[in-house]
């Protein structure tokens, strides 16, 4: 659509319409807009909003998929808090988020710093480091991971060679979660690319000025790079944290669909899945889903609140 301003000089002059006609035309345009959006709106209502409303309702019921849901108020939530497996799932997920997310971001930032400098074969390295992010979520990688960390597999052998034999991570309740952490850290490519973009935005003059003032590489990183990319860092922290809370596929596959051994990989969504689809407690599973939503919302809110203290925006205008 052409803008009036750019119309060629000989274009017919556009006269202002009468207000009533204009209003009518506006309504018609809106209607057309809504009609064109209608497939999407219908999809949203049927596939997103509807199920969400339903699950909110089920969260307060006893529902096994076959009998009609029975209203039980907050019982699902009270049962949840007293359920040792639920507590375990919260603990496992928290551990995974708290250990996995910072490690992943540290690695992403580190590699981004290395790749930000121009050197030969840069494109290749970027692609190579990004590749795991593309395939990492697939089930087949889960299987590969399981194979890598099994007893007498490559990780175990390397460990034994270095003198500390654990007998593979996959079967050991104390170790298996770290194989999942390793899997998420390995997929650092996506935040790395975002860091790279952020690093490119830092003005060169700042570094030059700092160098003239005698600032070393660490000082330059601490006083220039970090504050300058803090909005990008914030974005990555937010995204990766939310992402970590939702871990399911890798835990499910690496544990051979058991979320074990000894519930050591019983991440929140895994327990939710077991409750819903194996034990047919859909009401309880829905309640769990809404608790997860609340928890993620809370963590997000805390992160947003904290950004005042450490995120630096150029114009200081938020």
């Amino acid at each position, binding site marked *: *659509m052409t803008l009036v301003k750019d119309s060629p000089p000989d274009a017919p002059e556009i006269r202002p319409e009468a207000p009533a006609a204009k209003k009518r*035309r506006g309504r*018609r*345009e809106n*209607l*057309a807009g809504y*009609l*064109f959006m*209608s*497939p999407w709106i*219908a999809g949203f209502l049927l596939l997103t909003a509807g199920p969400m409303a339903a699950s909110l309702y089920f969260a307060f019921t*006893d529902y*096994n*998929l*076959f*009998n009609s849901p029975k209203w039980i108020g907050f019982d699902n939530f009270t049962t949840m808090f007293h359920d*040792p497996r639920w507590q375990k799932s919260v603990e496992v997920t928290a551990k995974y988020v708290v250990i996995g997310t910072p490690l992943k971001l540290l690695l992403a930032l580190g590699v981004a710093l290395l790749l930000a400098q121009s050197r030969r074969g840069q494109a290749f390295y970027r692609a190579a480091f990004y590749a795991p992010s593309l395939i990492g979520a697939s089930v087949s990688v889960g299987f590969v991971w399981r194979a890598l960390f*099994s*007893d007498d597999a490559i990780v175990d052998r390397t460990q034994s060679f270095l003198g500390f034999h654990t*007998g*593979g991570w*996959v*079967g*050991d*309740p104390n170790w298996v979660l770290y194989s999942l952490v390793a899997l998420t850290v390995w997929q650092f490519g996506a935040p790395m690319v975002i860091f790279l973009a952020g690093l490119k935005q830092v003005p060169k003059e700042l570094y030059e000025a700092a160098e003239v003032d005698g600032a070393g590489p660490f000082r330059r990183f601490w006083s220039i790079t970090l504050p300058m990319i803090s909005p990008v860092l914030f974005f990555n922290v937010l995204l990766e944290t939310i992402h970590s809370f939702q871990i399911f596929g890798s835990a499910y596959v690496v544990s*051979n*669909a*058991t979320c*074990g*051994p*000894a*519930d050591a990989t019983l991440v929140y969504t895994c327990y939710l899945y077991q409750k819903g*689809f*194996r*034990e*047919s*407690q859909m009401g309880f599973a829905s309640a769990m889903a809404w608790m997860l939503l609340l928890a993620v919302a809370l963590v997000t809110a805390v992160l947003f609140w904290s950004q005042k203290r450490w995120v630096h925006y150029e114009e200081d205008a938020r």
Partner: protein
Amino acid sequence: MGNNGSVERRTVLKAAGASLATLGLAATTGCGGDGGSSGDGTVTIRYAWWGADERAKRINQSIALFEKKYPKIKVKTDFQDYVAFWEKFQTQAAGGNPPDVFQNAVGFLRKYDKRGVLLDLKPQIEAGNLSLDNFRAGVEKVGQVDGKQLGIPVGSNTMSLVIDEKVFEKAGVKPKQGWTWDEYFAALKKIHDTQKLPGDTGYFSIMYLYDLYLRQNGKAFFTKDGLGFDEADLTEWWTDGYNRVKAGIVTDPKRVEQDKPKSSLSAAHGASEFTWDNFTVRYTAEGTSTYGLAPIPTTDGKQTGQYLASLMLSASARTKHPKEVAQFINFMVHDPEVGKIMGYDRGILATTEQFDAYKPADAPNQAIAKYETDVAAAGVLGTITPHPAGADTCESAFLRIGGDMSQGTTKVADAVKQFFSEAKTALAS
């Protein structure tokens, strides 16, 4: 879009029509339900089961045979592994779209009967579309619940003890019918002391074995609607189990976990393992030793508590073709050719027609057939106790919590409490 910025009415109507059409299309593909019958009177029935490729090959061969004999009935199959199968089945059943015929087991009968999913096959039997004759040792009773025939057995099996024969021989242990638990555990200790090998791979978290032990003591794992034992019983069973792991006569559960998907018995990290007799084919395939079947230990030197359990074929209460479904099941359980094709893949063939038609040529299958004949001859077979709705969840909880307990991550007392609490929830739902 028009240069003047306004949208023609016709365009709007077209757009509306198009989006409605899209929605309509989505709706039809979403439901996808024709009744399974076509113009020329051919009906299609859906048959779902769990298992692996080997079973798929055999089942497809059997179905080809069936379709040749009944050209008006087409059979569409679908299979997954055990866990995925039941997850999918449950969703389909809840959505009112379960397969017409499906593989079933005793732990699921009451659960899905209670929810109105299973077809009572009695009327089909009375109509002559399905025969209940010639089932071995009364195994057809496994499919009966409250006077209804909800499943037709395809094969039967019984709990057994698989042993590494070489290790047992070297240790000088000879299992015999009627040996006691004390003798069994003494044997494990002897194996541990002389062969430096745990004797058992973890008997205490196998629900079906504990059921046998309870039956030997006049109880059972389940009653019609609950658990047939109390916390004190389980505390004793699990405390002993834990102590035996600590003493090294039962395989370290971490080791068992590492060996998966292999069994610790075939990985040579244990000398014996309790399991269903028809599962024993796998050990010879997986391991390097020779494996044999031994009798279940007893409490009083007589009763093993054993019974015949079975895989069954059940039908959906919603099927539009009950007659064809009955004919299909009838063919699958009675036809001698099918017996030859299926072999003991789903347990010892349930009907005498099929049992007589198939003579196993390989040693493991011969051993299984002999085992069942011996057990029947020993007169120890009893009738199966009920499995209430929720039995399946109880079984997996028993296995999981028993595992936690033996890993030492949960104290025995807490593990017992947790099992009873989870079982209570499962049996109530």
